[in-house]
């Protein structure tokens, strides 16, 4: 099963769709978690996920906003989506009895 940071990265990439690339994924993760995401963690994880066949990457176009430098574009593969779903299901199932989930459900109802 994938790790939590791998799950965060794949989910961020999936939600960004065609616009998924290093800096955008990093911003998405930081906005969602409220924690800083280092470039080192991001790119070593992307490489690991690509080796596992969960992501594909390619060099994108350069833009003036980036000082004329290219982006690393990211796309989640079918296998990546299945593994992310398996992770999500596992977290959802294991969380059912947890107090913070039941309290949240009660307060919502």
């Amino acid at each position, binding site marked *: 099963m994938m790790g939590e940071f791998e799950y965060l990265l794949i989910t961020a990439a999936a939600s960004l769709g065609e616009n998924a690339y290093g*800096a955008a994924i990093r911003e998405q993760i930081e906005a969602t978690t409220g924690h800083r995401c280092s*470039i080192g*963690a991001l*790119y*070593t994880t992307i490489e690991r996920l690509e080796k596992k066949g969960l992501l594909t990457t390619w060099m994108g176009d350069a833009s003036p*906003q980036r000082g004329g430098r*290219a*982006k*690393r574009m990211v796309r989640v593969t079918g296998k990546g989506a299945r593994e992310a779903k398996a992770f999500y299901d596992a977290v959802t199932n294991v969380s059912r009895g947890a107090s913070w989930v039941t309290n949240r459900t009660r307060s919502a109802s």
Partner: protein
Amino acid sequence: MTNAGWSVVEVAARSLHPEEREVVLGDLNERGERAWQGLLDILDLVMRRQVMLWKRWQPWLTAFGVTVPCSFLLMGVSLSVCQSWLWFIDARTLHSADPARSLPMLVCHAALLLGWSWTAGFFVGSTSPRTLWVSALLCCSPCMFCLARFHIPSLSRLCLLVFLVPAIWGVRRGLRISRLRLSWAIALASATTLLIVGMGNGGAGRWWTPSAWVLNGILTWPAWYLVLASTRLGKTAC
């Protein structure tokens, strides 16, 4: 980001793969990070990449199977060749030895030094190019150690470092082409081995002792490894 800060970040990023460098510097530019933060990010990535490299066996073999032992031994061989050269010159001057006998031995000795140093350098440059800085440091340490303790009045300290010239040539070649053509690799390894045998048969009795075989083996195995690597990988690139 200031120009000076940006320059430091770009220098630090040189240790990354060119594609990754492009992407990471672009990301930093896009986010408008401060120079020191960008520098920390780059150093973090470089550290992680280095740690990942050292999870493979190649950097360990290169560092501790070739660089350290070969540096020590090749300094000894360099010294021995320089000493032989001095004896040859003295013998010619004093007419005390037969040049027809001592010259081929000197040439064989020098050719062995060249072959061993070049193959060790090529091995280091081609097997683990991204940990070359560690290999360089590991080569410098024994050199400094021996230079500090060197006291042969008739020889210059630089004699210890003669092996560095062909070794650096080998490293540069190894960085440019990842492996030798099989025929070249076989020729190099065979020539080195034949030279050792030739030196033994030529009357240098110390070449046939068990310890000499071990030392010769340590210096010669990178050449045979290059043969194996060329055979296994198949693709020619010389």
